[in-house]
């Protein structure tokens, strides 16, 4: 079937083109709202600025197709093969992309608001500037999870997105908006989160080993039991953050602001806390073996039962701090 025939038949109100062979079809700007192209072969097709709102494209083959500016809002793309497709500036709002293969897809400035991306494979995809507000990428049954390995998520808007258990290892998330995002149990090892906004994000049990978080906004972030071993948190703002039981060995908190944070039972051994603001921080039962707390500000902090015997406290301000033995430092 060629493009012409498809358009003609569609004009006669035919909607079912399931399994059609439309390889390399030129359908630029075509109005195909509500069309059923499930299992269709659309490899290398050109659908620039076409209207496929509410279309059914489940199991369709769209490899290397040019879908720039396409409107696929509320479309069904379950298990669609979207490898290497160009979805630059496309509108996929509310689309169902469960288990879709979006490996190496180009999604620059795409609208992916409220999309269902559970179990979707986005490894190596370029999502720079894309909007994924309210998108669902959470893992299913502790088994399937959205794969974003090696993806580019620079300046991506993931506010409020559900990324529970998502694989975000080594992902470029510089300047991304992750405020209020759900990243529980997410794998963020070696991820670059510099300048990212993580205000109020849920990172409970997330793995941020060796992640870079320089200049990131982490106010009121929830990091219970999170793993931040060797993570770079220099200069970050963590005021009001909750980090009980967090693993923070060798983490770099130099010049960071941790005022009012809850760090009870946190493991901060060998952590760099030079010139860190820890005013009113709760470090009860914290483990600070060989931690560098030189010139840090621990005014009003609680250090009850904290392990401080081998930490460096030279030049640290401890005014009114509650010391490990329960005494108040004057």
């Amino acid at each position, binding site marked *: 079937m060629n493009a012409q025939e498809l358009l003609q038949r569609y004009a006669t109100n035919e909607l079912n083109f399931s399994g059609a062979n439309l390889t390399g079809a030129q359908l*630029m*700007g075509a109005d195909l709202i509500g069309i059923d192209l499930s299992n269709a072969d659309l490899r290398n097709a050109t659908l*620039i*600025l076409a209207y496929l709102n509410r279309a059914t494209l489940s199991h369709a083959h769209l490899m290397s197709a040019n879908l*720039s*500016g396409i*409107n696929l809002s509320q479309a069904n793309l379950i298990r669609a093969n979207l490898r290497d497709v160009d979805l*630059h*500036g*496309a*509108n996929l*709002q509310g689309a169902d992309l469960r288990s879709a293969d979006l490996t190496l897809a*180009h999604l*620059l*400035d*795409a*609208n992916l*608001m409220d999309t269902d991306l559970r179990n979707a494979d986005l490894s190596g995809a370029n999502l*720079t*500037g894309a*909007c994924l*507000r309210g998108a669902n990428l959470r893992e299913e049954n502790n088994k399937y999870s959205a794969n974003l390995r090696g993806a580019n998520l620079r*300046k991506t*808007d993931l*506010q409020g997105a559900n990324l529970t258990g998502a694989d975000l290892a080594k992902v470029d998330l510089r*300047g991304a*908006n992750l*405020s209020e995002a759900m990243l529980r149990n997410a794998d963020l090892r070696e991820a670059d989160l510099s*300048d990212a*906004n993580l205000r109020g994000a849920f990172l409970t049990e997330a793995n941020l080993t060796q992640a870079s978080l320089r200049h990131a906004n982490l106010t009121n972030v929830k990091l219970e039991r999170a793993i931040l071993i060797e993570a770079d948190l220099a200069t970050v703002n963590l005021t*009001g953050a909750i980090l009980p039981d967090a693993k923070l060995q060798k983490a770099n908190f130099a010049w960071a602001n941790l005022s009012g944070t809850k760090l009870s039972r946190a493991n901060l051994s060998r952590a760099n806390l030079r010139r860190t603001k820890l005013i009113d921080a709760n470090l009860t039962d914290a483990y600070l073996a060989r931690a560098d707390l030189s010139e840090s500000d621990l005014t009003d902090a609680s250090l009850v039962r904290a392990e401080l015997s081998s930490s460096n406290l030279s030049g640290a301000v401890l005014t009114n701090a509650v010391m490990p033995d329960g005494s108040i430092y004057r």
Partner: protein
Amino acid sequence: MNVLSPFDETVRDLTLAQHLPRIKKLLVYACTHHWESNAVGLASYHLHDLVKQLVQIAPTFSALKIHLNGVIQTLNKSAEYTLVANTLMRHLQPLYPDAVSYSSEHYQSLYFIAAQHLEQDSDAKRIKKLIHFVCRDQWGHDTDTVELHTLIEELHSLTPTSDELTAVLESVVQTISKPDKYRAIAQRIIQGLAPLYYPTTHALMHPEQAVSEISEALSEHSAQPQSSAQLKVCLSETQPRDGVATPKANSSSAPLVHSATGNSTPPADTKSQRKLPEPMSMRKKVASLPPEDLFELRNEIHKFTNPLLAKYLLFMNSYASAVQETRDSKPGQWNIMVWDALKSTDIDTLLCDGLKHCRNLGEFERSLKRTARQFSRPKQYSGVISAIVRAVTPMFADCQEPPAIVYPAVQEEVQGTPTYGKRRSSDGPPSEPIYQDISEQPSAYFDSPSSFDPERLKRQNNRPQSFSEQETAFEVPALDPAAPGKFKVSEVNHVSLASDSTAALETAALDASVKPPGLDSTASKSVDLEPTESDSYLDNTENEPPSQSSPLFLQANSENVKDDRANEKIEQAINGPESRLGQQLNQPLKANSSEEFHGGSSEETAYLVPPLSSSAALSQEETAYLVSTPPYPTTTSKVASRSQSFNSNVNQKSKNGKHPLRQEPVDETLFLPAP
């Protein structure tokens, strides 16, 4: 009868106040530095004792204010508790003899004026709502029962300095569900109340000056400014009696009056306080935009339009010249350079680029419309434009470039070739032509012959197909800055543009189309326009001073018509076809000769046309010379006689291949050779 003491009365009123638990929490915290959130614990404190204790801690009203402010800063919900503190201070005010009240008639009149001014705002209801919320800590509750001036008075007493007002509004706005919308509202409140924050001494010492300054302040921020006479009346009524803030307890006491006339207020202080909050320029606003706001902007655009089309429009708005796009391509069929460029940038970068080169939102919108008109399917972009403008409006609505100086008509030689696509800089004179959205204005004028910008002409582009032959154009040949030939434009006054209506055509006595023998792009001549009559008008709606390098400046704007006589003439000339004229004027005109004329034959002539695309009506005694310079032959077409209209098609190749501009002029056209 049991008469309550003022103290007991205050406490009793306080017990009836809304949010009593919060008030009590704050009181406990202010008195004991202990945050009591437990209801039982809270109940153990007596309001009476707390108030007594607080009065002891803070014996003066200013001390109370400082103390409460200091206390609030340590709370995590400082915005909410600012409101609670305001309520508390309002209630405790009677206990403080030093509490400044602005009940004097002078202030009352200012409150009335400010209220009147704010009520004229299109968002008057929201303004009242916000002020009500700040003063009473109640949202949308019985705002109709309270007069705005009463609220303003309360607000003024709560925030005696403009800094406090700004801080309070900012903190309160953050707690509202639509902070962006209400930030703009807050800005308008600040602007509207600016006159209240003039030093109290100022009005007394220099009443005349004060009136004019306050009047200025109002007119700057108001669409319908209060007349200075009105303000004068208000002030003259009140000043002799009581011009300054007077304590309520001893309203007739002298100390404050003394301080007003004495040297208590240092002049430097006065000066700094006199400075009104200036609206931020777009450039500054863009530069100071936090990343979160950029995400919001992008999100709004994504929600209501196609991101790719928005990107393309924004890209072409800023960088059309860089990619040499023909602009004829259908959406999506853009050249490879455009695709590459679009892929290498993101939407917020392009948006910021577009915004920072405009003075205000109106200009930004016009710029986008102008860009879209140059596309083959401009209609497709109207939705895109509205989505973009809607997205940026909450954040940039209050942006306004400080008024620019309107230069007098300067006779100047054009130096150097104007650069196509060169962006306007806020630091220097604008280099990019600015067009009024003529579609909104039925008539257009030559405001000043000397303010005729050659770049403006160069920027014109091909007209959409809908622009048919019958459409008339007021044609001005292009100006080549390098041309040595100089011409004078004499007495170019109000060239009104009529439409393509038959009536206009009938009266058209002059075709302005100049018929040059051919295009000679290598010709190098210069142009100089010299106005010989001083009653030309400079447009200042966009506050654009004519460029130093481009003294020629064509105005297409009816807003600044100051000459009623001319106005009448223009109306006569237009008479009827106004609506069509609007449409017609909306069409872009082609002028970028290097690009557009390639397709034509070698003898095809090109005309650069200003955004005025109609006939011109001139008074008999008024004569306009339209100047043509190389790359076209140096000509000056003389436009004369009453109600003469130009009828010339612009440089669009007509369907039969013949250039529409090559038709013979209807009436006299004067070609003047270069000297």
